[in-house]
Protein backbone atom coordinates (compact mmCIF):
# COMPACT_ATOMS: atom_id res chain seq x y z
CA UNK A 1 0.00 0.00 0.00
CA UNK A 2 1.22 3.53 -0.72
CA UNK A 3 2.79 5.47 2.15
CA UNK A 4 1.65 9.06 2.50
CA UNK A 5 4.79 11.06 3.33
CA UNK A 6 6.35 14.48 2.72
CA UNK A 7 7.81 15.23 -0.70
CA UNK A 8 11.33 15.32 0.76
CA UNK A 9 10.81 11.92 2.37
CA UNK A 10 9.34 10.44 -0.80
CA UNK A 11 12.25 11.55 -2.98
CA UNK A 12 14.84 10.53 -0.39
CA UNK A 13 13.31 7.07 -0.16
CA UNK A 14 12.59 6.48 -3.83
CA UNK A 15 15.27 8.23 -5.88
CA UNK A 16 18.92 7.22 -5.55
CA UNK A 17 22.07 8.26 -7.38
CA UNK A 18 22.41 6.32 -10.61
CA UNK A 19 18.71 5.45 -10.82
CA UNK A 20 16.64 5.45 -13.97
CA UNK A 21 13.88 7.95 -13.25
CA UNK A 22 10.82 8.61 -15.40
CA UNK A 23 8.84 11.77 -14.69
CA UNK A 24 5.77 11.78 -16.89
CA UNK A 25 2.80 14.03 -17.60
CA UNK A 26 1.95 14.96 -21.18
CA UNK A 27 1.92 18.79 -21.00
CA UNK A 28 -0.68 18.35 -18.23
CA UNK A 29 0.25 17.24 -14.67
CA UNK A 30 4.03 17.54 -15.01
CA UNK A 31 5.59 16.83 -11.57
CA UNK A 32 7.73 19.98 -11.37
CA UNK A 33 7.88 20.24 -7.57
CA UNK A 34 9.17 16.67 -7.37
CA UNK A 35 11.78 17.52 -9.99
CA UNK A 36 12.92 20.45 -7.85
CA UNK A 37 13.20 18.19 -4.84
CA UNK A 38 15.46 15.82 -6.79
CA UNK A 39 17.67 18.81 -7.66
CA UNK A 40 17.58 20.00 -4.05
CA UNK A 41 18.66 16.56 -2.81
CA UNK A 42 21.52 16.77 -5.36
CA UNK A 43 20.96 13.38 -6.97
CA UNK A 44 23.59 12.53 -9.59
CA UNK A 45 24.14 10.20 -12.55
CA UNK A 46 20.43 9.75 -13.16
CA UNK A 47 19.14 8.28 -16.38
CA UNK A 48 16.16 10.52 -17.03
CA UNK A 49 13.31 9.12 -19.10
CA UNK A 50 10.46 11.21 -20.48
CA UNK A 51 8.62 11.54 -23.78
CA UNK A 52 8.79 15.35 -23.74
CA UNK A 53 11.69 16.53 -21.55
CA UNK A 54 10.51 20.10 -21.48
CA UNK A 55 11.32 22.61 -18.73
CA UNK A 56 11.33 19.98 -15.96
CA UNK A 57 14.28 18.11 -17.45
CA UNK A 58 15.97 21.27 -18.73
CA UNK A 59 16.24 22.15 -15.03
CA UNK A 60 17.47 18.72 -13.92
CA UNK A 61 19.99 18.56 -16.79
CA UNK A 62 21.23 22.09 -16.15
CA UNK A 63 21.58 21.25 -12.44
CA UNK A 64 23.88 18.35 -13.33
CA UNK A 65 21.64 15.53 -12.08
CA UNK A 66 21.58 13.52 -15.31
CA UNK A 67 24.12 11.42 -17.19
CA UNK A 68 21.67 10.12 -19.80
CA UNK A 69 18.36 11.16 -21.33
CA UNK A 70 15.86 8.80 -22.98
CA UNK A 71 13.23 10.84 -24.82
CA UNK A 72 11.23 11.50 -27.95
CA UNK A 73 10.82 15.29 -28.17
CA UNK A 74 13.01 17.80 -26.38
CA UNK A 75 11.64 21.29 -26.79
CA UNK A 76 9.91 24.06 -24.88
CA UNK A 77 6.37 23.56 -26.19
CA UNK A 78 5.07 26.55 -28.06
CA UNK A 79 8.27 28.49 -27.34
CA UNK A 80 11.43 26.97 -28.82
CA UNK A 81 14.58 25.19 -27.77
CA UNK A 82 15.55 23.72 -24.41
CA UNK A 83 18.76 25.64 -23.88
CA UNK A 84 20.12 23.60 -20.98
CA UNK A 85 19.48 20.38 -22.90
CA UNK A 86 21.21 21.76 -25.98
CA UNK A 87 24.13 23.08 -23.95
CA UNK A 88 24.61 19.63 -22.42
CA UNK A 89 24.40 17.83 -25.77
CA UNK A 90 26.40 20.37 -27.76
CA UNK A 91 28.94 21.46 -25.11
CA UNK A 92 28.77 18.87 -22.28
CA UNK A 93 27.78 21.54 -19.74
CA UNK A 94 27.66 21.05 -16.78
CA UNK A 95 28.35 17.38 -17.49
CA UNK A 96 28.17 15.27 -20.65
CA UNK A 97 24.72 13.99 -21.51
CA UNK A 98 24.28 10.71 -23.30
CA UNK A 99 21.06 10.55 -25.30
CA UNK A 100 18.80 7.76 -26.50
CA UNK A 101 16.03 9.09 -28.65
CA UNK A 102 12.85 7.58 -29.96
CA UNK A 103 9.57 8.60 -31.50
CA UNK A 104 6.53 9.23 -29.28
CA UNK A 105 4.98 5.97 -30.48
CA UNK A 106 8.21 4.16 -29.67
CA UNK A 107 8.35 5.59 -26.16
CA UNK A 108 4.67 4.88 -25.51
CA UNK A 109 5.17 1.27 -26.59
CA UNK A 110 8.33 0.92 -24.52
CA UNK A 111 6.33 1.96 -21.45
CA UNK A 112 3.48 -0.40 -22.42
CA UNK A 113 5.90 -3.31 -22.67
CA UNK A 114 7.29 -2.47 -19.24
CA UNK A 115 3.82 -2.18 -17.72
CA UNK A 116 2.83 -5.49 -19.31
CA UNK A 117 5.83 -7.44 -18.04
CA UNK A 118 7.08 -8.02 -21.59
CA UNK A 119 10.69 -7.53 -22.71
CA UNK A 120 9.63 -5.72 -25.87
CA UNK A 121 6.75 -4.29 -27.86
CA UNK A 122 6.15 -4.22 -31.59
CA UNK A 123 5.04 -1.30 -33.71
CA UNK A 124 5.05 0.05 -37.23
CA UNK A 125 7.72 2.64 -36.80
CA UNK A 126 11.37 3.63 -37.21
CA UNK A 127 11.55 1.88 -40.60
CA UNK A 128 13.32 4.05 -43.14
CA UNK A 129 14.31 6.67 -40.55
CA UNK A 130 17.83 7.47 -39.35
CA UNK A 131 16.62 6.87 -35.78
CA UNK A 132 16.65 3.11 -36.33
CA UNK A 133 20.43 3.06 -36.72
CA UNK A 134 21.24 5.58 -33.96
CA UNK A 135 19.09 4.28 -31.15
CA UNK A 136 19.72 1.29 -28.91
CA UNK A 137 16.84 -1.03 -28.13
CA UNK A 138 15.34 -0.93 -31.63
CA UNK A 139 15.36 -4.07 -33.77
CA UNK A 140 13.55 -5.57 -36.71
CA UNK A 141 11.10 -8.43 -36.13
CA UNK A 142 9.35 -10.54 -38.73
CA UNK A 143 5.71 -11.47 -38.27
CA UNK A 144 5.53 -15.27 -37.95
CA UNK A 145 2.19 -15.28 -39.77
CA UNK A 146 2.51 -12.70 -42.58
CA UNK A 147 6.32 -12.29 -42.87
CA UNK A 148 5.85 -8.52 -42.61
CA UNK A 149 8.83 -6.68 -41.17
CA UNK A 150 8.02 -4.64 -38.08
CA UNK A 151 9.97 -2.89 -35.36
CA UNK A 152 10.60 -4.16 -31.85
CA UNK A 153 11.44 -1.70 -29.07
CA UNK A 154 12.85 -2.89 -25.76
CA UNK A 155 10.76 -2.43 -22.62
CA UNK A 156 11.27 0.53 -20.32
CA UNK A 157 11.57 -0.55 -16.68
CA UNK A 158 12.53 2.56 -14.72
CA UNK A 159 13.63 2.30 -11.11
CA UNK A 160 11.26 5.12 -10.22
CA UNK A 161 8.21 6.77 -11.78
CA UNK A 162 7.35 10.29 -10.65
CA UNK A 163 3.96 11.74 -11.57
CA UNK A 164 1.53 14.39 -10.36
CA UNK A 165 -2.20 13.81 -9.84
CA UNK A 166 -5.18 15.81 -8.69
CA UNK A 167 -6.23 13.64 -5.73
CA UNK A 168 -5.43 10.77 -3.44
CA UNK A 169 -7.60 9.34 -0.69
CA UNK A 170 -6.36 8.55 2.81
CA UNK A 171 -5.53 4.98 1.77
CA UNK A 172 -3.25 6.25 -0.98
CA UNK A 173 -5.49 5.49 -3.95
CA UNK A 174 -4.70 8.08 -6.62
CA UNK A 175 -7.02 9.75 -9.16
CA UNK A 176 -6.24 12.06 -12.07
CA UNK A 177 -8.25 13.22 -15.04
CA UNK A 178 -8.07 15.43 -18.13
CA UNK A 179 -5.21 14.54 -20.44
CA UNK A 180 -4.00 11.33 -18.81
CA UNK A 181 -0.99 10.73 -21.04
CA UNK A 182 1.29 7.80 -20.37
CA UNK A 183 1.39 8.01 -16.58
CA UNK A 184 -0.39 4.74 -15.85
CA UNK A 185 2.06 2.85 -18.04
CA UNK A 186 4.97 4.77 -16.48
CA UNK A 187 3.94 3.90 -12.91
CA UNK A 188 3.18 0.27 -13.71
CA UNK A 189 6.45 -0.16 -15.62
CA UNK A 190 8.56 1.16 -12.74
CA UNK A 191 9.86 -0.66 -9.68
CA UNK A 192 8.89 2.25 -7.39
CA UNK A 193 6.72 5.32 -7.75
CA UNK A 194 6.19 8.75 -6.24
CA UNK A 195 2.88 10.52 -6.83
CA UNK A 196 2.49 14.15 -5.79
CA UNK A 197 -1.14 15.26 -5.45
CA UNK A 198 -3.00 18.53 -5.22
CA UNK A 199 -4.96 17.29 -2.22
CA UNK A 200 -5.96 14.33 -0.09
CA UNK A 201 -9.72 13.73 -0.04
CA UNK A 202 -11.87 11.45 2.09
CA UNK A 203 -13.46 9.79 -0.92
CA UNK A 204 -12.39 9.77 -4.55
CA UNK A 205 -15.60 10.81 -6.27
CA UNK A 206 -15.74 9.05 -9.64
CA UNK A 207 -14.92 11.52 -12.43
CA UNK A 208 -15.44 11.28 -16.17
CA UNK A 209 -12.20 10.37 -17.90
CA UNK A 210 -10.39 9.67 -14.64
CA UNK A 211 -7.65 7.13 -14.14
CA UNK A 212 -7.47 5.55 -10.69
CA UNK A 213 -4.23 3.95 -9.54
CA UNK A 214 -4.95 1.64 -6.61
CA UNK A 215 -2.85 2.31 -3.54
CA UNK A 216 -1.14 -1.07 -3.76
CA UNK A 217 0.31 -0.13 -7.16
CA UNK A 218 1.91 3.09 -5.81
CA UNK A 219 4.90 3.45 -3.43
CA UNK A 220 4.70 7.02 -2.07
CA UNK A 221 2.10 9.77 -2.13
CA UNK A 222 3.04 13.35 -1.16
CA UNK A 223 0.69 16.30 -0.95
CA UNK A 224 2.09 19.16 -3.03
CA UNK A 225 -0.55 21.73 -3.98
CA UNK A 226 0.51 23.49 -7.16
CA UNK A 227 3.17 20.83 -7.65
CA UNK A 228 2.74 20.82 -11.43
CA UNK A 229 3.49 24.53 -11.92
CA UNK A 230 4.18 25.86 -14.58
CA UNK A 231 2.25 22.89 -15.98
CA UNK A 232 -1.30 22.56 -14.69
CA UNK A 233 -3.73 20.29 -12.93
CA UNK A 234 -7.15 20.38 -14.59
CA UNK A 235 -9.70 21.64 -12.11
CA UNK A 236 -6.99 23.06 -9.80
CA UNK A 237 -4.72 25.34 -11.81
CA UNK A 238 -4.12 26.81 -15.27
CA UNK A 239 -1.03 26.33 -17.40
CA UNK A 240 1.36 29.25 -16.79
CA UNK A 241 2.10 29.90 -20.43
CA UNK A 242 4.03 33.03 -19.54
CA UNK A 243 6.48 31.04 -17.46
CA UNK A 244 7.18 28.77 -20.44
CA UNK A 245 7.95 31.90 -22.45
CA UNK A 246 10.04 33.40 -19.63
CA UNK A 247 12.04 30.17 -19.35
CA UNK A 248 13.54 30.87 -22.74
CA UNK A 249 15.45 33.86 -21.38
CA UNK A 250 16.20 32.32 -17.97
CA UNK A 251 17.69 29.19 -19.48
CA UNK A 252 19.54 30.71 -22.45
CA UNK A 253 22.47 31.84 -20.31
CA UNK A 254 24.39 29.62 -17.86
CA UNK A 255 24.76 32.33 -15.22
CA UNK A 256 21.14 33.42 -15.37
CA UNK A 257 20.05 29.81 -15.10
CA UNK A 258 22.37 29.12 -12.16
CA UNK A 259 21.12 32.18 -10.33
CA UNK A 260 17.53 31.14 -10.95
CA UNK A 261 18.21 27.63 -9.65
CA UNK A 262 19.92 29.03 -6.59
CA UNK A 263 17.08 31.30 -5.72
CA UNK A 264 14.10 29.15 -6.67
CA UNK A 265 15.27 25.64 -5.89
CA UNK A 266 18.33 25.40 -3.65
CA UNK A 267 17.41 28.26 -1.36
CA UNK A 268 13.84 27.35 -1.07
CA UNK A 269 13.02 25.40 2.06
CA UNK A 270 12.90 21.67 1.62
CA UNK A 271 9.53 20.00 1.90
CA UNK A 272 6.31 20.39 0.01
CA UNK A 273 6.05 23.19 -2.45
CA UNK A 274 2.87 25.14 -1.92
CA UNK A 275 0.69 27.71 -3.58
CA UNK A 276 2.76 30.37 -1.82
CA UNK A 277 5.91 28.97 -3.33
CA UNK A 278 4.35 28.99 -6.75
CA UNK A 279 3.22 32.58 -6.28
CA UNK A 280 6.83 33.45 -5.52
CA UNK A 281 7.97 31.72 -8.65
CA UNK A 282 5.35 33.36 -10.77
CA UNK A 283 6.04 36.76 -9.22
CA UNK A 284 9.76 36.48 -9.74
CA UNK A 285 9.38 35.87 -13.42
CA UNK A 286 7.02 38.77 -13.75
CA UNK A 287 4.02 36.69 -14.73
CA UNK A 288 0.50 36.44 -13.47
CA UNK A 289 -1.58 33.28 -13.30
Amino acid at each position, binding site marked *: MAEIVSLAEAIAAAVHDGDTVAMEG*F*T*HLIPHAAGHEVIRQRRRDLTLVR*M*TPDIIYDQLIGAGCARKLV*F*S*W*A*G*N*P*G*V*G*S*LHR*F*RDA*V*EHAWPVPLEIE*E*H*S*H*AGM*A*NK*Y*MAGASGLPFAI*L*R*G*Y*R*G*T*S*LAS*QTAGVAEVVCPFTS*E*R*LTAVSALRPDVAVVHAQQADRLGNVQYW*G*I*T*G*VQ*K*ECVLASARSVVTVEEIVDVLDPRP*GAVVLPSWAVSYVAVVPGGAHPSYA*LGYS*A*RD*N*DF*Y*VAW*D*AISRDRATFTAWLDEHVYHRPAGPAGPAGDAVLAGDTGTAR
Partner: protein
Amino acid sequence: MSYTADEMMTVTAAHALRDQMTCFVGIGLPSEAANLARATHAPNLILIYESGTIGAKPGVLPLSIGDGILAETADSVVSVPEIFNYWLQSGRIDVGFLGAAQLDKFGNINTTVIGDDYADPRVRLPGAGGAPEIAAACREVIVVIRQSRRTFVDRVDFVTSVGFGDGPGSRQRLGLTGAGPSRVITDLGVLTPDPQTSELTLSGIYPGVSVADIKGRTGWDLRVSADLSELPAPSEPELTALRGLLATMPASKADRVPPAAAASAPVTARATEGAAR
Protein backbone atom coordinates in the same frame (compact mmCIF):
# COMPACT_ATOMS: atom_id res chain seq x y z
CA MET B 1 -7.37 43.40 -47.80
CA SER B 2 -3.60 43.04 -47.55
CA TYR B 3 -2.08 39.94 -46.02
CA THR B 4 1.29 38.45 -45.09
CA ALA B 5 3.09 35.50 -46.64
CA ASP B 6 2.41 33.57 -43.44
CA GLU B 7 -1.31 34.30 -43.68
CA MET B 8 -1.31 33.12 -47.29
CA MET B 9 0.45 29.93 -46.19
CA THR B 10 -2.00 29.25 -43.37
CA VAL B 11 -5.07 29.90 -45.50
CA THR B 12 -3.69 27.68 -48.28
CA ALA B 13 -3.05 24.93 -45.73
CA ALA B 14 -6.62 25.30 -44.43
CA HIS B 15 -7.92 24.87 -48.00
CA ALA B 16 -6.29 21.45 -48.11
CA LEU B 17 -8.72 20.19 -45.46
CA ARG B 18 -12.22 19.03 -46.33
CA ASP B 19 -15.20 18.86 -44.01
CA GLN B 20 -15.53 15.68 -41.89
CA MET B 21 -11.92 14.69 -42.52
CA THR B 22 -10.00 13.32 -39.57
CA CYS B 23 -6.85 15.35 -39.07
CA PHE B 24 -3.90 14.53 -36.79
CA VAL B 25 -2.65 17.99 -35.98
CA GLY B 26 0.41 19.48 -34.32
CA ILE B 27 0.59 22.77 -32.46
CA GLY B 28 1.72 25.86 -34.35
CA LEU B 29 0.90 26.42 -37.98
CA PRO B 30 -0.89 23.07 -38.45
CA SER B 31 -3.19 23.81 -35.52
CA GLU B 32 -3.83 27.34 -36.79
CA ALA B 33 -4.68 26.07 -40.27
CA ALA B 34 -6.89 23.25 -38.97
CA ASN B 35 -8.78 25.53 -36.64
CA LEU B 36 -9.15 28.10 -39.43
CA ALA B 37 -10.65 25.40 -41.66
CA ARG B 38 -13.02 24.45 -38.84
CA ALA B 39 -14.02 28.10 -38.41
CA THR B 40 -14.68 28.56 -42.14
CA HIS B 41 -15.40 25.87 -44.76
CA ALA B 42 -14.99 22.68 -42.68
CA PRO B 43 -17.04 23.05 -39.49
CA ASN B 44 -17.10 19.27 -38.92
CA LEU B 45 -13.38 18.72 -39.35
CA ILE B 46 -12.28 16.20 -36.72
CA LEU B 47 -9.16 17.34 -34.91
CA ILE B 48 -6.97 14.75 -33.20
CA TYR B 49 -4.02 15.82 -31.06
CA GLU B 50 -1.28 13.46 -29.90
CA SER B 51 -2.18 14.28 -26.31
CA GLY B 52 -5.05 11.83 -26.83
CA THR B 53 -7.84 14.32 -27.52
CA ILE B 54 -10.13 13.07 -30.28
CA GLY B 55 -12.60 15.51 -31.81
CA ALA B 56 -11.30 18.54 -29.90
CA LYS B 57 -13.26 21.71 -30.63
CA PRO B 58 -11.21 24.52 -29.08
CA GLY B 59 -12.87 27.92 -29.26
CA VAL B 60 -9.46 29.54 -28.99
CA LEU B 61 -6.12 28.42 -30.36
CA PRO B 62 -4.33 26.14 -27.90
CA LEU B 63 -0.75 27.14 -27.10
CA SER B 64 0.34 23.61 -26.27
CA ILE B 65 -0.67 20.23 -27.50
CA GLY B 66 -2.00 19.43 -24.07
CA ASP B 67 -4.04 22.53 -23.21
CA GLY B 68 -7.03 21.86 -20.99
CA ILE B 69 -9.40 23.21 -23.62
CA LEU B 70 -8.53 20.29 -25.89
CA ALA B 71 -9.56 17.74 -23.27
CA GLU B 72 -12.63 19.72 -22.23
CA THR B 73 -14.03 20.00 -25.76
CA ALA B 74 -13.03 16.56 -27.08
CA ASP B 75 -15.46 13.79 -27.98
CA SER B 76 -13.07 11.41 -26.25
CA VAL B 77 -9.76 11.64 -24.41
CA VAL B 78 -7.60 8.54 -24.57
CA SER B 79 -4.15 7.65 -23.29
CA VAL B 80 -1.04 8.46 -25.28
CA PRO B 81 -0.30 4.79 -26.06
CA GLU B 82 -3.87 4.39 -27.28
CA ILE B 83 -3.82 7.44 -29.56
CA PHE B 84 -0.69 6.16 -31.28
CA ASN B 85 -1.60 2.47 -31.49
CA TYR B 86 -5.38 2.29 -31.93
CA TRP B 87 -6.00 5.57 -33.74
CA LEU B 88 -2.87 6.53 -35.67
CA GLN B 89 -0.95 3.30 -36.42
CA SER B 90 -4.15 1.53 -37.45
CA GLY B 91 -4.37 3.81 -40.49
CA ARG B 92 -7.76 5.34 -39.72
CA ILE B 93 -6.66 9.02 -39.84
CA ASP B 94 -7.19 10.85 -43.13
CA VAL B 95 -4.55 13.52 -42.98
CA GLY B 96 -1.47 14.30 -40.90
CA PHE B 97 -0.12 17.84 -40.66
CA LEU B 98 3.63 18.13 -40.13
CA GLY B 99 6.18 20.89 -39.83
CA ALA B 100 9.88 20.46 -40.54
CA ALA B 101 13.26 22.04 -39.92
CA GLN B 102 14.64 20.48 -43.12
CA LEU B 103 12.83 18.90 -46.03
CA ASP B 104 14.28 17.23 -49.11
CA LYS B 105 13.07 16.71 -52.65
CA PHE B 106 11.50 13.36 -51.74
CA GLY B 107 9.56 14.94 -48.90
CA ASN B 108 11.68 13.37 -46.15
CA ILE B 109 11.71 15.42 -42.96
CA ASN B 110 14.45 16.25 -40.48
CA THR B 111 13.61 17.56 -37.02
CA THR B 112 16.52 15.90 -35.19
CA VAL B 113 19.99 17.30 -35.92
CA ILE B 114 21.64 19.66 -38.37
CA GLY B 115 25.10 18.51 -39.45
CA ASP B 116 26.60 15.28 -40.70
CA ASP B 117 27.60 13.84 -37.33
CA TYR B 118 24.70 12.72 -35.15
CA ALA B 119 27.03 12.34 -32.16
CA ASP B 120 28.36 15.89 -32.53
CA PRO B 121 25.62 17.87 -34.20
CA ARG B 122 25.99 21.41 -35.43
CA VAL B 123 22.51 22.09 -34.08
CA ARG B 124 20.46 19.87 -31.85
CA LEU B 125 16.74 20.06 -32.74
CA PRO B 126 13.87 18.74 -30.57
CA GLY B 127 13.65 15.36 -32.26
CA ALA B 128 10.92 13.13 -33.57
CA GLY B 129 7.83 13.55 -31.38
CA GLY B 130 4.88 11.95 -33.09
CA ALA B 131 6.04 12.89 -36.60
CA PRO B 132 7.57 9.59 -37.83
CA GLU B 133 4.40 7.59 -37.27
CA ILE B 134 2.15 10.40 -38.51
CA ALA B 135 4.24 10.43 -41.70
CA ALA B 136 4.01 6.63 -41.90
CA ALA B 137 0.37 5.98 -41.11
CA CYS B 138 -1.94 8.86 -42.08
CA ARG B 139 -3.69 8.33 -45.41
CA GLU B 140 -1.94 11.48 -46.62
CA VAL B 141 0.47 13.98 -45.15
CA ILE B 142 0.61 17.73 -45.57
CA VAL B 143 3.84 19.51 -44.69
CA VAL B 144 3.86 23.17 -43.82
CA ILE B 145 7.26 24.88 -43.85
CA ARG B 146 8.79 28.25 -44.67
CA GLN B 147 10.95 27.95 -47.73
CA SER B 148 14.68 28.73 -47.90
CA ARG B 149 17.85 27.14 -49.26
CA ARG B 150 18.65 26.11 -45.70
CA THR B 151 15.32 24.34 -45.12
CA PHE B 152 14.78 22.97 -48.65
CA VAL B 153 17.74 20.67 -49.20
CA ASP B 154 18.65 18.00 -51.70
CA ARG B 155 19.05 15.37 -48.97
CA VAL B 156 18.16 15.87 -45.30
CA ASP B 157 20.99 15.45 -42.76
CA PHE B 158 18.86 13.03 -40.75
CA VAL B 159 15.65 11.26 -41.79
CA THR B 160 13.35 11.79 -38.83
CA SER B 161 10.16 11.09 -40.80
CA VAL B 162 9.97 9.34 -44.14
CA GLY B 163 8.31 11.02 -47.12
CA PHE B 164 9.10 9.06 -50.28
CA GLY B 165 12.45 7.76 -48.99
CA ASP B 166 14.75 7.25 -51.97
CA GLY B 167 11.96 7.68 -54.46
CA PRO B 168 9.27 5.48 -56.06
CA GLY B 169 8.70 2.17 -54.28
CA SER B 170 10.45 3.16 -51.06
CA ARG B 171 7.28 3.42 -48.98
CA GLN B 172 6.04 0.06 -50.20
CA ARG B 173 9.40 -1.58 -49.45
CA LEU B 174 9.37 -0.10 -45.95
CA GLY B 175 5.79 -1.20 -45.32
CA LEU B 176 4.53 2.33 -44.68
CA THR B 177 0.76 2.14 -44.91
CA GLY B 178 -0.14 5.74 -45.77
CA ALA B 179 0.36 7.38 -49.17
CA GLY B 180 2.96 9.89 -47.96
CA PRO B 181 3.13 13.65 -48.56
CA SER B 182 0.34 14.85 -50.83
CA ARG B 183 1.51 18.46 -50.74
CA VAL B 184 4.06 20.77 -49.18
CA ILE B 185 2.71 24.22 -48.42
CA THR B 186 5.24 27.01 -48.03
CA ASP B 187 5.22 30.79 -47.74
CA LEU B 188 5.73 30.99 -51.51
CA GLY B 189 3.61 28.26 -53.05
CA VAL B 190 2.64 24.60 -53.05
CA LEU B 191 4.71 21.58 -54.06
CA THR B 192 3.20 18.20 -54.95
CA PRO B 193 4.95 14.90 -55.66
CA ASP B 194 5.38 13.94 -59.30
CA PRO B 195 3.36 10.73 -59.79
CA GLN B 196 6.23 9.10 -61.73
CA THR B 197 9.32 10.21 -59.81
CA SER B 198 7.87 11.11 -56.38
CA GLU B 199 9.99 14.28 -56.54
CA LEU B 200 8.38 17.40 -55.09
CA THR B 201 7.37 19.66 -57.95
CA LEU B 202 6.10 23.24 -57.92
CA SER B 203 2.41 23.07 -58.74
CA GLY B 204 0.95 26.19 -57.14
CA ILE B 205 2.29 29.69 -56.77
CA TYR B 206 1.02 32.58 -54.67
CA PRO B 207 0.01 35.92 -56.21
CA GLY B 208 3.02 38.19 -56.70
CA VAL B 209 5.61 35.40 -56.32
CA SER B 210 7.76 34.37 -59.30
CA VAL B 211 9.03 30.91 -60.20
CA ALA B 212 12.55 32.34 -60.08
CA ASP B 213 11.97 33.50 -56.46
CA ILE B 214 10.94 30.01 -55.50
CA LYS B 215 13.81 28.30 -57.34
CA GLY B 216 16.18 30.71 -55.62
CA ARG B 217 14.94 29.52 -52.27
CA THR B 218 15.12 25.80 -53.05
CA GLY B 219 18.27 23.75 -52.43
CA TRP B 220 17.73 21.41 -55.34
CA ASP B 221 16.93 21.88 -59.01
CA LEU B 222 13.20 22.37 -58.55
CA ARG B 223 10.97 21.15 -61.35
CA VAL B 224 7.84 23.04 -62.26
CA SER B 225 4.61 21.24 -63.02
CA ALA B 226 3.09 21.65 -66.48
CA ASP B 227 -0.13 22.47 -64.64
CA LEU B 228 1.34 25.25 -62.49
CA SER B 229 -1.49 27.46 -61.31
CA GLU B 230 -1.71 30.63 -59.30
CA LEU B 231 -3.49 30.06 -56.03
CA PRO B 232 -6.22 32.45 -54.88
CA ALA B 233 -5.42 35.14 -52.33
CA PRO B 234 -7.09 34.77 -48.94
CA SER B 235 -10.64 36.06 -48.83
CA GLU B 236 -11.63 38.77 -46.40
CA PRO B 237 -13.69 36.38 -44.24
CA GLU B 238 -10.75 33.98 -44.09
CA LEU B 239 -8.34 36.68 -43.02
CA THR B 240 -10.80 37.98 -40.43
CA ALA B 241 -11.30 34.48 -39.04
CA LEU B 242 -7.54 33.78 -38.96
CA ARG B 243 -6.70 37.04 -37.23
CA GLY B 244 -9.49 36.45 -34.76
CA LEU B 245 -8.06 33.04 -33.92
CA LEU B 246 -4.54 34.36 -33.51
CA ALA B 247 -5.80 37.12 -31.25
CA THR B 248 -6.96 34.44 -28.81
CA MET B 249 -3.38 33.21 -28.31
CA PRO B 250 -1.76 34.18 -25.02
CA ALA B 251 0.69 37.07 -25.24
CA SER B 252 4.08 35.63 -26.01
CA LYS B 253 7.47 37.11 -25.34
CA ALA B 254 9.27 34.76 -27.70
CA ASP B 255 8.51 33.58 -31.17
CA ARG B 256 6.35 30.53 -31.27
CA VAL B 257 7.63 27.33 -32.83
CA PRO B 258 5.52 24.39 -33.80
CA PRO B 259 6.26 21.69 -31.24
CA ALA B 260 5.61 18.00 -30.94
CA ALA B 261 3.96 16.39 -33.97
CA ALA B 262 4.70 19.48 -36.02
CA ALA B 263 8.18 19.46 -34.59
CA SER B 264 10.41 22.23 -35.72
CA ALA B 265 12.88 24.46 -33.98
CA PRO B 266 15.27 27.28 -34.67
CA VAL B 267 17.93 25.98 -36.98
CA THR B 268 20.35 28.63 -35.83
CA ALA B 269 20.05 31.43 -33.35
CA ARG B 270 19.24 33.69 -36.26
CA ALA B 271 16.53 31.35 -37.37
CA THR B 272 14.66 32.03 -34.17
CA GLU B 273 13.82 35.38 -35.61
CA GLY B 274 13.63 34.29 -39.25
CA ALA B 275 11.94 30.94 -39.60
CA ALA B 276 10.48 29.83 -36.34
CA ARG B 277 6.88 30.31 -35.53
